[in-house]
């Protein structure tokens, strides 16, 4: 029966080509716009470390003085050097890393490459296993290197390709800011989207090219990129280790919820202890969001992207209403034909099915056209200058979602017209002819 319905549908659609084209086009545009914006939204709000992100937490403390204190206020979004180092050395989590972003002048040994600045991450040894950073050559530095302020560095695969043509460069020397560093390892391709562990330099920034021990970078006063918030006597560029400023990110790995609860208790005890010592003045104000919680809190997905997604949904709605109206008119106009079918013995259900097949054909065609349009749309998005542009690609789940959306939407659009049309009274239709 399905084949027969399909044949009927195609005949009917061919009878009025302009109208069919209009319905297909409307659905295609609606679906195309929706899928483009939803794909961008999906990519940008994705989990950067699936399977691991629920075990990674971002402790927040409130070390500020009472100036401007308001109960219930959010704690600062970074930590001070003192607190970061205290928590790092306490080692109460399964893994922990203290970090900040920076930029270092790189002076390649080859004269063919001009000196250039490379984005860097100054961090501690646990960074690499904690964030499951893939290592191509060599190994990460150790906690002992951190303590010794060792002149060691890891570099990204991209930088390794640029400087060493992709060969194993471990053991080589790299001059940065007039200091010789020994390369101990090379990362494999790695990009976190969003750049969750440090959102200060763009939520979708590329990962860094150079990784150095934080202690070394601080000793050498290497240039920092990021934000600094101070209170009291304010910033002191020469003594950032004691300045009342938050400027570092601190991440911990806690394998079970019980450990997370215990760690939160530890942070409260730590705050109380620091208050007793006179360093903290405010009552303990502790947060411990995990990766997704931290991303939500920072509203990393750009407003424009969310706005575009809502707009596209509205657009699809108008397109669907349009299609429903046209289909309704079309089906009702065929009342006479449907009346004959009913009179010849087709049940209401069968007529309904026949009409649904017709709307399904429109939906499917519109969906396929919409998919092509969304590929064009994503290509246009990739042409944009934003730092997330390169990420806009259609993945398999979104591809399936497109089809479900297209067929579902058009079937939904077909329901009302088909139902109305199959209500025809056969006798009345036959009589009027």
């Amino acid at each position, binding site marked *: 029966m399905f084949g027969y319905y399909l044949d009927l549908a195609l005949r009917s659609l061919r009878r009025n080509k302009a109208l069919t084209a209009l319905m297909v086009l409307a659905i295609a545009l609606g679906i195309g716009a929706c899928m483009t914006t939803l794909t961008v939204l999906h990519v940008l709000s994705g989990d950067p470390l699936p399977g691991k992100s629920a075990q990674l937490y971002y402790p927040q403390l409130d070390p500020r003085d009472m100036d401007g204190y308001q109960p219930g206020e959010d704690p600062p979004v970074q930590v001070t050097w003192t607190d970061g180092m205290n928590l790092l050395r306490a080692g109460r989590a399964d893994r922990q890393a203290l970090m900040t972003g920076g930029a270092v002048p790189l002076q390649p040994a080859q004269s063919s490459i001009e*000196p250039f600045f490379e984005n860097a991450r100054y961090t501690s040894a646990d960074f690499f296993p904690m964030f499951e950073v893939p290592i191509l050559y060599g190994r990460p530095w150790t906690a002992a290197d951190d303590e010794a302020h060792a002149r060691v560095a890891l570099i990204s695969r991209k930088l390794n390709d640029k400087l060493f043509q992709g060969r194993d460069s471990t053991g080589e020397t790299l001059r940065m800011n007039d200091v010789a560093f020994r390369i101990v390892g090379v990362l494999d391709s790695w990009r976190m989207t969003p750049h969750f562990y440090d959102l200060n330099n763009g939520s979708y920034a590329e990962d860094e090219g150079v990784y150095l021990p934080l202690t070394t970078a601080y000793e050498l006063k290497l240039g920092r990129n990021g934000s600094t918030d101070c209170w009291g006597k304010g910033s002191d560029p020469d003594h950032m280790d004691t300045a009342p400023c938050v400027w570092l990110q601190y991440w911990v790995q806690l394998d079970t919820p019980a450990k997370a609860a215990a760690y939160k208790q530890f942070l409260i005890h730590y705050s109380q202890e620091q208050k007793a010592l006179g360093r903290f003045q405010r009552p303990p104000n502790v947060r411990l969001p995990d990766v997704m919680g931290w991303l939500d809190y920072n509203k990393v997905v750009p407003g424009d992207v969310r706005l575009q997604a809502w707009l596209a949904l509205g657009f699809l709605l108008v397109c669907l209403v349009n299609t429903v*109206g046209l289909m309704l008119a079309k089906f009702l106009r065929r009342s006479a034909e449907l009346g004959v079918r009913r009179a010849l013995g087709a049940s209401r259900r069968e007529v309904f099915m026949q009409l649904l097949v017709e709307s399904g054909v429109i939906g499917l065609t519109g969906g396929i056209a919409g998919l092509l349009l969304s590929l064009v749309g994503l290509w246009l998005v990739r042409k944009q200058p934003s730092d997330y542009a390169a990420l806009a690609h259609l993945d398999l789940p979104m591809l399936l979602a497109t089809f479900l959306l297209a067929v579902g939407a058009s079937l939904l659009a077909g329901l009302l017209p088909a139902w109305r049309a199959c209500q025809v009274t056969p006798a009345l239709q036959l009589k009027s002819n």
Partner: protein
Amino acid sequence: MLQIKPILAALKRHKAGTVLIALQIALTLAIVCNALFIIQQRTEHLSRPTGMTETNLLTVANRWVGADDKATPSLGKTDLEALRRMPGVVDATLTNSYPLRGGGWSTSVNTTPEAKKEMAHTTLYFTDDHALAAMGAKLVAGRNFRPSEIEWVDAKEFQTTPVVIVTKALADKLYPDGSALGKVLYHSGHTKPSTIIGIVERLQVPWTGTWASNFAENTILIPRLLTGNFGSYLVRTQPGQLERLTKAVPKLLIQTNRMRVIPEERGVRTFAQVREQAYKSDRGMAILMGVVCAVLLAITAAGIVGLTSFWVGQRRKQIGVRRALGATKHDILSYFLTENLLIGAGGVIVGAALAIGMNLWLVSHFEMERLSLLYVAAGVIALLLLGQGAVLAPAMKASRVPPVEATRSV
């Protein structure tokens, strides 16, 4: 207008179709109003002049590598001399930032040292006596800096300078009676005054975002060059020399001294490129909104055409009867136009409410301002006209139905 009653009676027999068209008009109105408003917000400042002469202007971002901060003044001086000597170069200056660059120094400014609340927000450009010529900014009162007033200073130690040049916008804000020249200002909460020795017609701040919109032209030029490893050279070229110098300037700088990095991306840009990049995302959003509006209106119009055509086809016999009973072509035409106007009116009433509701929701969730009712009014008129235009063709067709149609059975 006498036809309203029969029209309403007829529409009752097409409830679903009527409601659908009205709903489509309502949704389209709501989206188009808000989209147009977003376009207006985004494009408002696209055409804002920077106050500089933007043709024949080259920007070069420079970063010293391995140079001590104390050494950078002499390096900078050498650079500037070399640049100014270059054939094809009119003038060159060094500055911490420039209009549309994106990053810079912003601070508060007052006319008294005691004031707790800032009178205005402003940006500071640290530059020299060649800045006005290199930027192509127009001095409307007072004088330029003298070479003897220029010094080098560490950004961390900078406090105030005895003399400054300000923009007219800032001068008028501080001294609304127009007497700013020769008066003093206090910035960044410092207690030492700076005398306004010159006023430039206009000079925009480095930022284009909404947060900077209330001080977009409040600028102070400080006769100090910053030591340290960052800075941007602004090079004004003779007409027709820009393209050549875009390549020659970085080459000359590298020749002068290799201890520097000129970033590959955005290191050397003509000002046309600076402007394009500064406004690219705003322009992109505005274009997108424009396309969405156009497509929505087209789809709605097509929908109205389609549905009305069906109704006309369905009612050929009735139309024939009316024509046979004495209705003129004009009567039939106005019947369909009025019918569409009634549906459209219902649609736009709901749509106006939807548009305002949608705007309130956008205001609470995104950085949006309240929709001006002017936009709703314009949208209402536009959609009603669109409806009338769309219905015209099917209505004309209906009016051409001959009276003899009444006698046909099918």
